[in-house]
C-alpha cells in the first residue's frame, strides 16, 4: 500500500469515527442540558456534576467537529492573495499554510501535554464531578493530535485548491 492510499484509507476510517463521535456526543450533551432544566424546573432538584458534564461533552463534541472541519477546509481564512497569485506561488502558499497549521497543532498538543503533567503532579480533582483534573485536561492535547493528523493527511493526499466558503459563524 502506498503512502497516499494509506492516507486515503485513514481518511475514510477517521471520517466515520468523527461522524459517530460528533453525533453521539452532541445528542448526549443535549440530553444533559435538557436533564438539568427538567430536574431544576419540574422536580426542583439537580446534580452538581450535571453542568460540568454538559460543558465537557459539548467541548469534546465541538473539537471533534473542528477536526472534521480541517478535512473539509472549513476553517475560515482570507485567501485573497493565494487566489490571485500565479499557480506555483499559490501552491507554495497553500502548503506553507497547512504546515503552519500543523505546527501550531503539534505545539498546542505539546503544551497541553505539559499541562496534563502539571495537573497530575498537583493531583487535584473537580469538586463537582470528582473526576481528576488531568483526565479532563487531556481532551485538549488529544484533540490537537487529531487536528495534526488531519493536517498530515491533507499534506499527503494533496493540498487541493480551496472549495468555496461554506456557512460560518456570525
Amino acid at each position, binding site marked *: 500500500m502506498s503512502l497516499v492510499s494509506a492516507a486515503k484509507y485513514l481518511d475514510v476510517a477517521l471520517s466515520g469515527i468523527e*461522524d459517530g463521535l*460528533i*453525533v453521539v456526543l*452532541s*445528542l448526549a*450533551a*443535549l440530553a444533559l*442540558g*435538557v436533564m438539568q*432544566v427538567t430536574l431544576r*424546573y419540574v422536580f426542583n432538584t439537580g446534580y452538581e456534576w450535571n*453542568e460540568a458534564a*454538559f*460543558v465537557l461533552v*459539548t*467541548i469534546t*463534541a*465541538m*473539537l471533534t*467537529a*473542528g477536526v*472534521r*472541519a480541517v478535512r*473539509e477546509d*472549513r*476553517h*475560515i*481564512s*482570507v485567501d*485573497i*492573495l*493565494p487566489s490571485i497569485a500565479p499557480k506555483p506561488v499559490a501552491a507554495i*502558499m*497553500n502548503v*506553507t*499554510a497547512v504546515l*503552519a*497549521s500543523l*505546527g*501550531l497543532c503539534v*505545539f*498546542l498538543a*505539546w*503544551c*497541553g*501535554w*505539559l*499541562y496534563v*503533567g502539571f495537573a497530575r503532579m498537583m493531583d487535584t480533582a473537580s469538586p463537582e464531578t470528582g473526576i481528576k483534573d488531568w483526565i479532563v*485536561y487531556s*481532551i*485538549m492535547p488529544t484533540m490537537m493530535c487529531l*487536528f495534526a493528523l488531519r493536517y498530515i493527511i491533507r499534506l499527503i493526499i494533496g493540498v487541493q485548491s480551496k472549495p*468555496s*466558503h*461554506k*456557512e*460560518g*459563524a*456570525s
Partner: protein
Amino acid sequence: MTILLLVFAFFLLIAIGAPVAVALGGSVVVTSLLLDPIPLAIIGQKAFANLDHFSLMAVPFFFLASALMDTGGLVRRLIAFANAFVGHFTGGLGITTVLSCVFFAAISGSSPATVAGVGRIMYPALIRDGYTSRYALGALATAGSIGILIPPSIPLIIYGFVTETSVTRLFLAGVIPGVIYALGMVLMAALLARHSDAPRHSRMPWPERARVTRSALPALMLPVMIFIGIYGLPAFEFGPISSDGGAIFTPTEAAVMAMLLAIVIGMFVYRELSPRDLFRTIADTAPSVGMIFFITTNALLFAFFITKIGVPAAVTRMIVDLGLEQWQFLLLVNVLFLIVGFFLEGVPTILMFVPVLFPTAVAMGVNPVHFGIIVIVNIELGLVTPPVGLNLFVASGVSGRPVLEVFRGALPWMAVTICVLMLVTFIPQLSLFLPELVFGK
C-alpha cells in the same frame, strides 16, 4: 518590538491563506518563543480553559437548532405564513423574504444560517415571481443579517462572554434596533420593487390564510417558548392556576431547548425529520461550530498575550490622550470595525478587538450593553462587505450567482444597515430602553 513581530507574523500567516485561528495562535507562539516567553504549560492551560465556559456552550446548540429547523420543514412553513399576509403588497414577496428572516432570526443565532435557511426557499421563489436576481440577492444577503440583532444571537453571546456583560440584557437590547432594521428593510423592499416589474398578487382569502397559519403554528411557537423560557411570564393568579413568573432557563439552556424543540416539531409534528436526517444534519453542521471553537481558543490566547505585553493599556492611554469626546470615540470605533469588517467575520472580530476596545469604551462612559449592540450592527455590515462577507458567500452559494453580483445587489439595501448603525450609535436609548425597563438600571 514584541508587538511588531506579533503583528508581522499575524499578517504574514493571514496573507498566505492560513486559517484565521492559526494566524492568531501561530503569531503568539512564534512571538512568545522568540521574545517574551510564557511558561508552556500556561499555553496548554489557556488552550483548554478558553473553551471551558458555560455561556460559550450556547453557540453549538443555536447553530444546530437552526439547521434542524431547516431540515425539519419549520422554515418552509414560516415563509408560507409570512407570504399569506404580505404577499399582496407591492414587493410582496420581497417583504415576505424580510419577515421570514425576522421569524427565523428569532430562533437562529446566526446570520449566515438565516440567509441559508430562508434563501434556499426564497431565492427560487423570487426569481419565479419575476424579481431580478439582483433584487433577490440583495434582499437575502442584507435582511439575513438581522439574524444576529434579533435575539438569540451568537455574536452577542460571545460579546457577553468576553466582557462579562449579561447576555439576557444584551438579547433584550437587540429587540428595538432589530425591529427598526426590519421596518427599514420592508420599506426598502417595497421601494425597490417599484423600479422592477414584479407582479402584484391578489390577497389570499382568509380560509387559506387560516390554513397556512395553523400549519405554521408549531414553528411559530418555538421562538415564543424560547422567549418565555429566558424572560419568564408576568406573574399571574387565575383561580387555582398561578405562576410567580420566573424564567425557566438561562440563555445557554435556551439554546439546548431550542434544539430539542426543533427536533420534536420536525420529527413528531411535521414528520419531515427522520433519524437519518437528524444524524446527517448534526454531522454536517457541527464542523462550522468546531471552526468557531478553534478560533475562540486561539483568539483568547492572542488576547491573553496582548494583555500580558500591555497593548490594551497602551491603546487606552493613547485614545484617552487624544482627548476624544464620547461620540468621536464611537465614530472612530465604527470606522475601525468597517475596515476590519472587510476582512474578518463577526466572531473573530469580537474576540480580537473587543478586549482592547471595551475597557476604553467603559472608561469613556459608554454603557457595556449599548457598546455591544454597536459592535453587533457593525458586524452586520461586515457580513455584506467584500472581499470577506459571509452573507455574500452564502447568498452566492444558495443562488449559484457570483459573489460580486450579490454585493451589487446588496448595495442599495446597505443604506438601511448604515442608517441603523448611526441610529444605534448615537441614540443609546434604542438599545437600553428594554433592558432597563425589565431589569432596572
